[in-house]
């Protein structure tokens, strides 16, 4: 057993610098001679952009330059690319309108950047921006998902009739129709998956810098994947050769998906730095984040589940309208399609599934992946339907699931929506969760709550997600415009310490600890001798970054492959030094040993020999001990689990209090249980946040973002949730990656929403309530209890 290896609750190596305020975020960095840019953003949801008069702004104190969309167009700067091509039902490609770095001719949402003012200070840049005279011709706008494709809705883009970006479908419609025709029972549901603002604690920031001597550009940016930004910005937007472009993502304070994408500000500061001959810095303030960071979710869905008379699922039919906002963000098109429809089998044996998705443009901030990305939406549809079906057919919520779960014995299991689950033991985690939640005591607790004027509700949700999108060739065939592997380089230094260069990016996920544990386990190096480097395209071979819970299953597997190469080379060196046959060398706990003898050398001694090759097989082995590996997964991984939530609803006010929350998850093998618990806790809070309090609301008339600050956008706070009870089941590890790991970053967010809403609906069953849209606010619940129609506040 290695100290601080796999399975150990190692304290986070990165915490010292974060907790002592010594992290280095992009805004902490200041480059010599740096100027500042302020972006003037559209105050209109939709308007013709007629003329920008910059004369007064250019004359304002400290103003260095003003840049408009026309300037960028004239300089040959391209639009921001979309990373995934989707095809319509009829085989034609989706409509991909250009997404200019700065608006040209039209503005399409409040916050759409219109002009950039560069000045000596941030305040002077903002003062200068107030002197810009912009001639707008306001146009009618559309923000609501359900309204966008209706006849007469304002057109967001010319050439996208009815605001439809694509009309896509997946699955076997004929098989589904046949199954519905013979169904004993059909459960239907109409639901809205509310739009969310990601709200990472660190607002986005970027600094562009140009070195004329070397003709090289550097971009510092708060991003989840610097290599992807280098690729997209270099190849598509600025047309810069990658060798001349360095992208650095230093410490990043949370992303939740919103920092995956290539944003306008990154291209702008990179381009402007060369233009003005000075480094150019941009940092969003919180208000700006609300109107410029990609938002999440926003689906309107009608779904139907066909069952036989015993409650066995026969078929699922789903029709979703997905709001993509004013422009296509980098991965926006993949989220409501391949990361959504493919998850609709859930944990169940439903034999036939069909899903249609109409994606629409609206005059809102672009929508893209937000923690879970498509999978929480799928889970919510499936688990609400299952719960509703159980209620309608008089089946117990656990019984209907037991009856329909894919059994462990059926693994690997091919779903009707493309995915092949490699592993999973669904009954086991559900039973464990029921026990942990003292489900048997729920009815007594319900009676006790009633005496206190509280309505207790129990909600169950089971989920499965697909992480580590793969393999690259399959993703490519489905429209991905990038590969989906990961790289790792393990570099031994002569005196035995190790630097790990990873293409994954940590912005809260604890990679500096977890990845160091992998090295400690795999190479027997003390964890304090391992340094993890990430986030710099000049230092790391390549990387696809961190999103979709991929870092451990994909990035971690690349680390294992690189370690395998280190060990293989070490064996050759050890064989030479120990005068034994290579085949007789064993490696264990950091020591190369001749099998069956006590002759051995530590990996540190081997590393020293590799760099000081005096006694070394130079004829057959190169000096040095530094190995790089790229890992392209054979399949997705499929984390899954059960969440159980208990709520108490105040009969007088409709307020909801969470009284119990249990999660039992199957993440495969666990590297650091403490880190995993932290990820689960945070994920659950974000799921609960969506279910109860978070809601991104646009004014339907003006298109203004109503919830544009924390005074109106309600973040989940500590008093919203109880102390969680979480556990994992490691009995069904991933079968196709070397660590047996599945990923844990998004699971909490995926399972929690449905569990909470199922609990709220259960609490209100005495009032005939069968569904509650998120967020389940006190007023919505109060109205439901009093038979009042849901009413938008005037």
């Amino acid at each position, binding site marked *: 057993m290695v100290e601080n290896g796999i399975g150990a609750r190692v304290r986070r190596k990165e915490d010292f610098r974060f907790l002592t305020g010594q992290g280095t975020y992009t805004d902490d960095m200041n480059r010599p001679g740096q100027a500042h840019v302020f972006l003037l953003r559209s105050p209109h949801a939709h308007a013709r952009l007629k003329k920008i008069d910059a004369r007064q702004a250019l004359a304002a104190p400290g103003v260095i330059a003003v840049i408009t969309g026309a300037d960028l167009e004239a300089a040959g700067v391209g639009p921001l690319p979309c990373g995934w091509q989707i095809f319509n039902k009829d085989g034609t490609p989706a409509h991909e309108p250009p997404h200019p770095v700065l608006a040209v001719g039209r503005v399409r949402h409040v916050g759409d950047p219109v002009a950039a003012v560069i000045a000596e200070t941030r305040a002077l840049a903002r003062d200068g921006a107030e002197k810009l005279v912009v001639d707008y011709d306001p146009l009618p706008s559309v923000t609501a998902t359900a309204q966008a494709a209706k006849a007469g809705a304002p057109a967001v883009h010319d050439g996208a009739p009815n605001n439809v970006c694509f009309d896509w479908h997946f699955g076997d419609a004929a098989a589904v129709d046949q199954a519905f025709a013979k169904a004993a029972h059909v459960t239907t549901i109409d639901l809205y998956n509310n739009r969310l603002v990601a709200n990472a604690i660190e607002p986005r920031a970027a600094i562009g810098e140009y070195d004329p001597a070397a003709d090289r550009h550097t971009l510092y940016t708060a991003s989840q994947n610097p290599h992807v930004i280098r690729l997209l910005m270099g190849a598509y937007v600025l047309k810069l050769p990658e060798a001349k472009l360095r992208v650095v993502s230093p410490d990043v304070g949370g992303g939740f998906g919103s920092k995956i994408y290539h944003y306008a500000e990154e291209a702008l500061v990179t381009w402007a730095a060369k233009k003005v001959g000075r480094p150019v810095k941009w940092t969003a303030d919180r208000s700006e984040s609300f109107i410029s960071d990609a938002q999440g979710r926003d689906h309107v869905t009608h779904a139907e589940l066909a069952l036989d008379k015993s409650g066995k699922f026969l078929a699922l039919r789903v029709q979703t309208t997905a709001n993509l906002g004013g422009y296509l963000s980098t991965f926006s098109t993949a989220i409501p399609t391949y990361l959504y429809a493919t998850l609709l089998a859930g944990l169940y044996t439903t034999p036939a599934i069909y899903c249609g998705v109409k994606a629409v443009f609206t005059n809102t901030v672009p929508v893209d992946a937000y923690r879970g990305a498509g999978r929480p939406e799928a889970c919510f549809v499936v688990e609400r339907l299952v719960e509703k079906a159980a209620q309608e057919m008089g089946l117990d919520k656990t019984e209907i699931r037991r009856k329909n779960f894919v059994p462990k014995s059926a693994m690997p299991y091919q779903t009707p929506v493309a995915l092949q689950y490699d592993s999973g033991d669904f009954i086991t985690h559900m039973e464990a969760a029921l026990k942990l939640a003292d489900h048997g005591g729920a009815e007594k607790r319900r009676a006790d709550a009633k005496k206190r004027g509280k309505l207790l509700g129990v909600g169950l949700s089971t989920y499965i997600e697909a992480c580590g999108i793969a393999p690259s060739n399959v993703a490519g065939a489905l429209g991905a415009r990038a590969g989906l592997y990961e790289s790792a380089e393990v570099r031994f230094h002569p005196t035995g310490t190790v630097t790990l260069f990873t293409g994954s990016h940590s912005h809260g996920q604890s990679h500096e600890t977890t990845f160091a544990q992998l090295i400690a386990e795999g190479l027997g190096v003390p964890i304090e001798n391992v340094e993890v480097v990430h986030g710099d395209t000049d230092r790391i071979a390549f990387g696809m970054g961190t999103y979709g819970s991929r870092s451990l299953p994909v990035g971690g597997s690349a680390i294992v492959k690189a370690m395998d190469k280190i060990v293989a080379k070490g064996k050759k060196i050890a064989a030479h030094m120990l005068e034994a046959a290579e085949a007789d060398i064993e490696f264990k706990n950091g020591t190369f040993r001749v099998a069956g003898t006590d002759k051995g050398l530590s990996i540190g001694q081997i590393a020293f020999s590799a760099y000081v090759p005096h006694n070394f097989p130079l004829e057959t082995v190169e000096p040095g001990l530094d190995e790089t590996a790229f890992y392209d997964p054979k399949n997705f991984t499929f984390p899954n689990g059960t969440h159980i939530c208990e709520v108490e609803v105040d009969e007088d*006010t409709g307020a909801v209090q969470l009284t119990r929350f249990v999660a039992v998850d199957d993440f495969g093998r666990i590297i650091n249980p403490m880190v995993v618990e932290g990820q689960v806790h945070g994920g659950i809070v974000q799921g609960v946040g969506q279910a109860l309090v978070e809601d991104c*609301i646009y004014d339907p008339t003006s298109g203004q973002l109503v919830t544009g600050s924390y005074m109106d956008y309600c973040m989940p706070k500590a008093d919203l949730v109880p102390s969680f009870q979480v556990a994992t089941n490691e009995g069904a590890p991933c079968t196709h990656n070397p660590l047996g790991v599945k990923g844990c970053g998004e699971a909490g967010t995926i399972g929690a929403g449905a569990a909470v809403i199922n609990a709220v609906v259960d609490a209100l069953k005495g009032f005939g309530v069968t569904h509650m849209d998120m967020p389940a606010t006190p*007023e919505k619940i109060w109205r439901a209890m009093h038979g009042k129609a849901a*009413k938008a506040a005037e």
Partner: protein
Amino acid sequence: MYNFNYHRAGSVDEAVALMAKASDGRFLAGGHSLLPTMKQRLAQPTDLIDIGRIAALNGVKTESNAVVVGAATPHAEVNASAKAIPALMALAAKIGDPHVRHRGTIGGSIANSDPAADYPAALVGLGATVKTNKRTIAADDFFKGLFETALSDGEMVVSVSFPKPEAAAYMKFPQPASRFALVGVFVARTSGGVRVAVTGAGPSVFRVKAMEDALKAKFTPDAIKGITVPAKGLNSDIHGSAEYRAHLVNVMARRAVAAAA
């Protein structure tokens, strides 16, 4: 934020004199409403007159029949020191978050007259008196409407005197995002009668006479069970319709009576 002139006043007289000289001056105490507005460039005062360090404006004094709170006293200090009126202590503990409670002041709060602020309910509920540099104003006459008070130009709140009640309690249903009062009801029973003051629900704090009369006869939650306020004229926004707020007024009033009784 735009540039402005900063002055630190050493006394009330100096503060008032500085204000008289400023072309568009504002008093600065805790700054927790004013500064965010300035940061967003929604307010552009020429001068800020910092009154936060005037000793005479700071602190909680307990008199025989009243608790007197200096205008620049932060909420946390009221929470710690207004022991003679536990309901006032409890109200102060529920304002905002710890940052707000340690910087925000009672004078700043009431002079701003935010429709969802907590303090107006306490002032009107307890029948407090506001002392300014010029005069004293009964709480009932102080709050005039949405962000509107009886203060004249250049007039400054100096202290607030809260008479000790026989029994009192404040119940608040917070707006979930801001934690301001979606509806807050302060109920107090004094030798002179009962006062019921509602904040958050309307454009400004208001009293519910029908509840006061019913509670004077019988100080129990049931006494006001059937007494509702009309929804018409109440605030309505994404966090609560006027109809829901009207409902909450009754619920919070009953809970306040239960807590006070």
